[in-house]
């Protein structure tokens, strides 16, 4: 089953490689991994999307907690949460296709953030499935380049991950 795990860890050089190294050394999946400092500059927050049986996810959580620089681990998928991912996609947009592409971006609530006479750069935010749907909706020969951040997530209501 797919899980989205949030981690608060010391914002120190090498902390990221400890987490990434743990996943590769123990053969756990990483679908995506994002990390950035928090409002408290001494802490980073990482979001990992992974998958595995309940036993594997339990081990992942325990092994993460065992890392000395990890302060807290929180499996967002245990409850209500919001999950978002950002994608930038550069598409060919010429002639009649320009208007069509603009309409499609609007339907997905995407924004055009870069324009040349041959292409658009479209910014799209949402759950991964929405980004997949957008890519599925356009003619793949028109896609010049895509970049995605991987998912970030936050718990709803009282589910707060803080030191």
């Amino acid at each position, binding site marked *: 089953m797919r899980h989205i795990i949030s981690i608060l860890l010391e914002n120190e050089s*090498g902390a990221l*490689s400890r987490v990434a190294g743990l996943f590769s050394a123990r053969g756990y999946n990483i679908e995506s991994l994002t990390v950035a400092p928090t409002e408290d500059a001494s802490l980073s927050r990482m979001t990992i999307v992974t998958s595995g049986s309940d*036993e594997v996810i*339990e081990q992942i959580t325990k*092994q993460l907690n065992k890392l*000395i*620089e990890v302060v807290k681990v929180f499996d967002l998928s245990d409850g209500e949460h919001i999950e978002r991912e950002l994608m930038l996609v550069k598409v060919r947009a010429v002639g009649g296709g320009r208007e069509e592409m603009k309409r499609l971006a609007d339907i997905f609530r995407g924004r055009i953030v870069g324009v040349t006479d041959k292409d658009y750069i479209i910014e799209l935010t949402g759950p991964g499935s929405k980004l997949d749907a957008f890519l599925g909706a356009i003619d793949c020969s028109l896609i010049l380049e895509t970049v995605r951040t991987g998912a970030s997530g936050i718990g709803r209501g009282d589910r707060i991950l803080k030191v």
Partner: protein
Amino acid sequence: MELNGAEITVRCLQEEGVDYVFGYPGGSVLYIYDELFKQDKVKHILVRHEQGAVHAADGYSRSTEKIGVALVTSGPGVTNAVTGIATAYMDSSPLVVITGQVPTHAIGQDAFQECDTVGITRPCVKHNFLVKDVKDIAPTLKKAFYIARTGRPGPVVVDIPKDVTAAKAEFEYPKTVSMRSYNPTIKGHAGQIQKAIQLLSRAQRPMIYAGGGVVLGNAAAELTQMVRGLGFPCTNTLMGLGGYPASDAQYVGMLGMHGTYEANMAMQHCDVLLAIGARFDDRVIGNPVHFFEEPRTIIHIDIDPSSISKRVKVDVPIVGNVREVLQELNKQLAAHKVKPDADALKAWWSEIDLWRSRDCLKYDRTASIIKPQLVVEKLYEITGGDAYITSDVGQHQMWAAQFYKFNKPRRWINSGGLGTMGFGLPSAVGVQLAHPGETVACITGEASIQMCIQELSTCKQYHLPIKIINLNNRYMGMVRQWQEFFHGNRYSESYMDALPDFVKLAESYGHVGMRIEKPADIEGALKEAFARKDQLVFMDFLTDQTENVFPMVPGGKGLSEMILV
């Protein structure tokens, strides 16, 4: 007053009460060696290879419960030390390994003797640090010692660039450590302990399975009190030998791949299993699917939450320091006046005694060639079971574990997790230094001993009267055994050709060498060797080349699918 980083480093070691540092100098650690030279509180032991330094620190630690300290230079010093660090990591041995690094401005430039120490050691340390500022040396070393010894112990590497050891700062050793991200659980959960008590009191076929955590956690006395109080059978893992006295009637021997028939059968057929400081690894329970074919309730005490339900699903986990939890358990057992079902226990013991009567460790005692088991048995008799025994890895290690009855913890020093050939001699160096007047023997084989044989020179330099018991069968015995059983007797590259004359070799290092070829000579030779209190004696026993270790649970099989003699 401002001190340079090297002096700060040495002062930190003094503050931690370190008496021995095992190491090897080199370019990046010259300032630290200069400071070691100027003082005499911390004694330096010069090994002949960095792997030996870490193993020696490890042996020192395992035999004393203190932290072992090693010091090596950058680059090859570090890569040589990695085997030692990984060995300590797999067996949860608390070490602080200080490594030199090229100057900060040269890091990342592919400088001479540079390697990414933090990167290379990351998967085999409990934690590691790169110290980039001289002001951080003292707080980092304080943390390193704290992390190494607390929670589930393990090796910590502190990498210090050369310019940082030359730079100056005020020295103050921190009194306390506080880390928001590291707070190991000590006390067991009271509710879980209650559940455990209920299960133990209702058990019909109980079994206690104690591992290295009992030895590392200094809980042997508490374990013994509990096992005797309950009257239950107890087995120790390879790492846990000595945690429960081996000559006790309730001891059913070591379990696992080369464990006794009775220990493995009792593990397989018990209804309540109490696992203490053990981790159900593949060499212990064999195939976990087979293990689960028999229903049983499992209680598991361990300091490391990630050891619980890792390979085997546990019913009652208790996370905590093994000693604290056992003390609490003993208190509660006494308070509740827990009396196990006497009839059920009697029936269970008669079943176990039936398994025992298979005499699974029997071997031919009348053979005309030396049987390795006989050497270990004689060694046990002659040392009164009171020696510190280190070992290498292979058949000799298993025979040592099966036939030397360890009655005290921290007497059996071996590489159980990583299985590092070459561990025996250098770890004996650390053990002998920690226990100057005591008997230290290294049980080894002609293949293993050659992996760190250079440490014979260290033994000479520091007058270490270690007794080396070389069970020489001219084969990498365990490899040969597997090839015989599973690879159609094709002994691919397992014959040890071109062996040195070990007697002359020992003599060339300034030690005493002996060759023993007949069973009748074993006892006399051992007596003569152990009478030489101030000399290292290398005893080369020419043993039966075809002898195998039994019983054996083949890889991937279940505990009750043993091959017996």
